[in-house]
């Protein structure tokens, strides 16, 4: 087991009182496993991903990463955990607009303390492998949606994390581009045995992963 959710609940305050988004969600993920989380809009998929990745804290319950409670980590420990063990792919890419594709992809290595030169060399290799070699010097606003997402994938795995979280990575893409992005993610998952947790609406995409979890009304179905 690499990641375990134990009775996770998440409430959001609203003017009419707390709104429960997640209600006692529990499951675990093994190393190298790929898991999809599906469900209708507003079912709590992205909120669950945020809790699993330590981007948010649960109202109750906890997330364990190899027996360590992510939910109880201090901010500095969380940052250290994310920069060494975790990769992210967001639906709307979230690239730094002032950095080129190469610099965006190299960012996690630089944050880890590697030299900018070394990080750029490695980012160049990965982008080339993803078919982005010719576009690596371009800024995000000069790239298409698919190119931006492939850059985000390169950024997510450049530091070879143990788990990648992807929040609807194909949500903004056409079918063909979406397929190529998923192929890239699954390729990484299989090649370097990185666990993959992927939130999607797409049942076809979910079927390509090892296991599928469906969430409905804040609970696992």
């Amino acid at each position, binding site marked *: 087991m690499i990641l375990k959710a134990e009775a996770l609940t998440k409430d959001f305050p609203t003017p009419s009182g707390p709104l429960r988004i997640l209600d006692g969600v529990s499951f675990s993920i093994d190393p190298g496993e790929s898991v999809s989380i599906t469900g209708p809009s507003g079912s709590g998929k992205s*909120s669950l991903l*945020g809790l699993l*990745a330590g*981007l*948010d*804290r649960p109202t109750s319950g906890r997330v364990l990463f190899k027996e360590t409670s992510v939910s109880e980590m201090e*901010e*500095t420990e969380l*940052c*250290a*955990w*994310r*920069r*060494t063990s*975790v990769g*992210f792919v*967001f639906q709307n890419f*979230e690239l*730094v*607009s*002032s*950095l080129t594709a190469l*610099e965006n992809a190299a*960012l*996690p290595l*630089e*944050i*880890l*303390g590697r*030299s*900018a*030169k070394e990080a*750029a060399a490695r980012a160049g290799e990965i982008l080339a492998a993803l078919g982005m070699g010719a576009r690596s010097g371009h*800024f*995000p*606003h*000069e790239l298409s949606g698919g190119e931006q997402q492939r850059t985000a994938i390169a*950024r997510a795995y450049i530091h070879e994390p143990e788990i990648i979280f992807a929040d609807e990575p194909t949500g903004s893409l056409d079918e063909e581009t979406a397929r190529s992005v998923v192929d890239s993610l699954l390729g990484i998952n299989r090649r370097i045995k990185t666990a993959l947790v992927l939130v999607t609406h797409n049942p076809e995409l979910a079927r390509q992963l090892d296991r599928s979890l469906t969430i409905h009304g804040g609970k696992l179905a």
Partner: protein
Amino acid sequence: MPVALFFRLYRRNFRRLFFFSSCLATGVAFLFAVESVLGAVRRSVGERSRELLAADLEVSSNRPFDAAANRVFDRFRKRGARIVPLTSFSSMLRPEDFGATPFLVSVKAVTAEYPLYGSLVTDPPHAPLGPGDCLVEDTAARQHGLAVGDAVLLGDARLRVSGLITAEPDKSMTRFSFAPGLIIAREAIDKTGLVRFGSRIRHRRLIALPRSADPAAASRAAEREIERTLDSPYIRVTAYADAEPTVSRVLKRVTGFFVVTALITLMLGAVGMGSSLTLFLNEQLPTIGMLRCLGVEPRAVAGLYHALCAAVGLQGAALGAAGGWLLGAVALEALKSGLGLTLPVELSLSPAAAAEALAVSTVVAVGVPFARVRAIAAIAPLTILRGKASTLPPRRRDTAILAILALAALYGFALLKSNSSELARGFAGGLVAAAALLAAASAAAVRAVERFAAKAPGLPFALRHGLLQLGRERARSRIFLFTLSAGFGLLGALDLVRLSLSEEILLGKADLVPDLFLVDIQKPQLQGVKELTRSFSRVEPEFSPLIRARLSHINGVAVRRRDSGAMTLEERSRQSFLLREYNLTYKDRLNGSETIVAGSFWRPGETASRISLEKGFSERMKVGLGDRLRFDIQGRPVEGTVDSIRTIDWMSMKPNFFVVIPRAVLEPAPQNFIASFRLADRGAFSDYQRALGRHFSNVSVIDLSKVLDSVQEILGTLLSALKGVAWFCVAVGLLVLAGTIALDRRARARRTALFKALGCPPARVAAVDAVSFAAIGLLTFAIGSLTALGLGRLIAGMLEIGFFVDFAAVGRTLAAALLFPTAVGVLANWRAYGAGVSKTLKFE
């Protein structure tokens, strides 16, 4: 639909739009508050200046006033003016005690209505002044051992000293005679037998005009009317506003400084609001893209955002008018309690002022972002939705048209406020040139930073990414850099001008300015008087020889009285000026108050006949470098060539002369000496006078300390108002700049969340931001300091102030420029460093 959309956008962005309005409102409020303050200061200074003349207007002549003059006085009387006659002349006063030394006095014969303004203070208070009485200046009475009740002889009249003069109103730094004062009743003139044909008499009329809203303008108008009607070279008319040149000169400069400060504050508000609106418009690009996709025409989109800008302007006008009224009330109260302004303060918000606030605010709010709104409204929707619009510049034609309109508006407004086309031209031209240079410098600096950071992969993480952030987010960085450099440059310039003006007002060392004069020192007494005075003086006393002379030839042509019938007023005035008696001096070194503005001054030991003239004197005489002048000194001719022109700072109170000749040429001529100095201990004045009276009884002491104190007090009022105005401008500027920096908060919060999601600790994100802002600070420091020096020199030149660079002040302002962006930027983003990543990415 657009109207409904307008209100929806307005409601949704109310807080931000309110901030933009506040930036503008601060400038507008300040503009109107300054007008109230300036009005009050002018009234207060005017009130004091009237005391320096004891009237609104003085008409004086060396000849008795003729029928035409008396008709003019009658005309003024009919309009409600009060007029009192005054007669002045010099004579010897002899204490009746046998053996007492007679001494020279400046006699003033007055009526009971004297003075029209200010008060004559005597010891005992309200001493009587009948036909057999006289009032003696206290310093002279002490020196010559006179007391109340003593008898003195003035010409043929025997008078009783009924009181000592401790303060009299119509004395100023440029209107005193080299003899102590004696006041007698007008009825006593005939008894003295001194006023007869050939006597040197000055006939004067003091005039108090009826109350008016602008007494200074009324006195000047009356001055022009009398001059035009009488058209005589022998008559001199002085309005109180011009009676003390130092005060009027400083008041003029302070007024100019106030106007410039108010305009600069408005500029700061406009720059802050303009930058903020530009950032806001960039943030609105997705909405604009969406509207365009939904089929809204560019014109309608432009109209919608122009209307939002106009709403900002209207809000700014309302806030500014109310703020200006409030600020004016607070400032005037501070002036009243802090500086002792005694005038009733009428504070009201006139419809004209409100309309002006509305116009200024709306024009600025719509005008500044006009080109940007038009540009983004016309961009293809896809360009906006792909996020490429924020980097596109406004259209050149729009920018050019806007620049021309801005220049015209700036000039027109500066002209309206200052009433000086020179100041308006300099201000508008200087600001536009400075803005263009600043924009170019900001763009070049941002580009240079980007190149440096991209080509230096070896830099530490925070440094590299901080600089990349600055260099790559060009549009945003340029706005910051331009706004901050303009802001700190303007504030720095203002501070430098304020300090230069303060330096000029306070003469640097006010406590060292001489306030006592000695006159009529004979050559054999010189050494003794020097020794005695040195032991009492705070500074080395300055002694100057005084030689009386008449001008006999200019370039070989004899100066003689010609028939003035066919002469213009100016020609008659010049003739009268040329024929008067002059005081010359000799020296081989300039004193600290003199500056050569043309030609060169001779070296010590010069034996050739050379002449140095004061600038105003040479202009009035219409002589310049190379002209030859011949003076008649008690029958002996002394001829020389004018080879230098000097300006003199008369406020220095040093003995200064229109005409200076080398020592070797003039030393043998008959002469006496005058001196100026300042007592080390004011309490020792009586001791000094007694000692002087004992050994050198003919030497008179003229005490100008009261006049000097009075002038310094007025100038001090101006200086305090000046400081308050300048510091308020600094405070407003910093607030507006802080607001502009804080506006970037959303984008930074999002980037912070992303970096944190990638595992970057908040402290490192803060370090990246700090580097980015520190680099902006450093660039602001460099560009701002050049702007401050350039604009400071320009503004000082416009206000005719000697530009003085106080490096400590420059350092202070620029240290703030260096630290301010970092501190505000990091503080504004502080919450984001600790905020949840998910929440920030979802909601910001």
